[in-house]
């Protein structure tokens, strides 16, 4: 049974759903020379499991910082971050690595695939760090590539794939560790609108299957497809929808 359906049932039963992401008064400042830049200024917000949120805002507004903090790539300066029951504020680097491996799938604008590895090997990478058996890894990676429609491109290297296909590989890689949350930073930024649309359809499909989706974008067409849109401006958050 899908998580979404579970949630619906819980809601129908009138029970409170625990948020999968909960930020309280999160601050993050950067020092650029003499200037202090407040990337996040006492940001608080919650995300329910299975939600699809678009984080928008102008360049340098702090949206990537927010995504990185939720994704466990960056530490906030203050406040509290709880993701899927994990308190990230004081988590040590080693634990954060495991957290990213088990809970988060990242999708990047420029795909960030390893050029000398095949599609299959790229998708297997998170599973290598999860110490999964080689045979199981291959099976899982193949399954993920089939899920993104690249079951016939397993042995292809990134250079032999189109932009859209590369991003599909990246999504398959994000999926391989069976994360509950996928954080996609401008996933359609490097693609034309048709390919971008394909990727959005794919991501929405994953969301429908219960994965919580966070998309950072300044493309309003992308943002529009989200269930919630959050805008960050000068480190402050405003809920648009």
């Amino acid at each position, binding site marked *: 049974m899908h998580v979404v359906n579970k949630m619906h049932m819980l809601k129908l039963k009138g029970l409170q759903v625990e948020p999968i992401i909960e930020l309280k008064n999160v601050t993050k400042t950067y020092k650029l020379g003499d200037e202090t830049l407040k990337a996040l200024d006492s940001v608080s917000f919650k995300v329910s499991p299975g939600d699809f949120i678009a984080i928008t805002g102008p360049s340098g507004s702090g949206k990537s910082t927010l995504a990185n903090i939720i994704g466990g*790539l960056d530490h906030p300066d203050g406040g509290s971050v709880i993701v899927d029951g994990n308190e990230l504020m004081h988590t040590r680097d080693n634990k954060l*690595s*495991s957290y*990213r*491996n088990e809970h988060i799938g990242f999708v990047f604008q420029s795909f960030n695939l390893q050029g000398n590895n095949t599609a299959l090997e790229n998708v297997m990478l998170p599973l*290598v*760090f999860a110490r999964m058996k080689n045979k199981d890894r291959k099976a899982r990676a193949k399954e993920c590539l089939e899920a993104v429609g690249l079951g016939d491109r397993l042995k292809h290297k990134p250079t032999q794939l189109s932009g859209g296909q590369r991003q599909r590989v990246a999504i398959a890689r994000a999926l391989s560790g069976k994360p509950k949350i996928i954080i996609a930073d401008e996933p359609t930024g490097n693609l034309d609108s048709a390919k971008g649309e394909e990727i959005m359809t794919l991501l929405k499909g994953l969301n429908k299957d219960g994965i919580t989706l966070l998309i950072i974008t300044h493309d309003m067409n992308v943002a529009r497809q989200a269930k919630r849109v959050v805008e960050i401006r000068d480190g402050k958050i405003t809920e648009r929808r």
Partner: protein
Amino acid sequence: MKLFDYIRLAFRNIRRQKLRSALTIFAVVIGATSVTIMLSLVTGAKGFFKSQVESSGLLEQVAVSPKQDITDFNSANNGGQCDSCTKLTDAIVEKVKAVPHVIGVARQVQDGSLEAITYNGKKLSLQRTTAYDANGIITRNILAGRDLAEADKDGVITITSDYADKFGFKGNYAGLIGKDVTLSTRGFYNGVGADIQPPVQCQGACDNNNNNPGQNQKATVFTAKVVGITDTNDSDATVRVPIDWARGFQTMRMYQQDKVTQVDCSKARGPCNPPQPTFSLVTTDQLAINGYASLIAKVDNSKNAAGVSTEIKKLGVGAADASASINQQLTVFNILGLVLGGIGGIAMAVAAIGVVNTMIMAILERTREIGVMRAVGAKRSTVRSLFTFEASMLGFWGGVFGVAIGFGLTRVANIFVNKQLASQGLKAHDIIGLPVWLILAVVGISTLIGLLAGLYPASRAAKLDPVEALRYE
């Protein structure tokens, strides 16, 4: 990450930049090859020396000297005399023979009676002559003919190859075997063979205390047959003679006036005919009185040499086994090994710098990749291990190829060394060895150097901030 994954990833990353990796490995190869060659040369020479020592039986020998304060084999072997020393007489020889684990004793004599050797009109001077029991305990490297044997009597000698060369037998030592040479003594020699005349009968009263024994002022000349040519480098004296002949050289022969009843002619009333003094030849075995220069005791097992040496010292004489002086010579090899290994070590250090450089370059190029690895769950320690592994692998392959090339070169060197040794009459084959420990050590050290060289770049890679790394262009 599993060990297999580290190996697989490191291997793949090395192959990614083929030329750069090859050049870096090549630098390690140069270092590893030079270390291999230098150390195999030294271990080869050391092994050859050891085997020579073992085959010479030196390890089973204890040298005995009259001098008690002797500490090393060579000085004990050289012997020497001193007034207060316990003389190495036959009585001592018997006592040494009785020491447990001693299976034989050879007595050594050094003699200065002979002054010159002449062959075919060519006269060459001699410093000293040696003699020892030809019972197989003391052996010399024989280049032609045979060594002295126990059955040899007076008039049989061996000479060294340098003298054979001077007599014109270079390259044909066998040609001198069986030939007669002339040996001449110093003046005032009065040992065996010296023509000593009785003193001239004195007219009138003779002083008994000044009995004017006959002395031989001229050199005595012997004819001797050369039975063997010894290697100059392995000989302590040019001419070796049977020990009994040397005993003869050292036997003092002189005429002494016999005791007579003194007659006082001044009190004689009639004609006084005092009895004429008579003389007889007296021989004194000086060797029996002064003792032998040194003894070599043969021990049943080299392990017992030190113990036997201690036991012999209790007889009031000096004794030393060869282990100390052999160890001293082995130390020389060890120092040589350190120096030569150090030269190879410098090459290795340069190679290590190459590895550091390559790894830093690799990390710069792969910064984004490191960011991705961190994003999908690689720990800092995983990244560190991965790059350290990669650097170690550069060292490992450098070591493997270095040893392989070093092995090839030592094979070639052996061909030349074998020829050289064969020309010196030494039976040795492939002395420049490449023992397993050396192969493992060189590969191990190369890998370790790679690992150490990789530590700094790897720690830089591990410290990369994943967010920054992902943003790196």
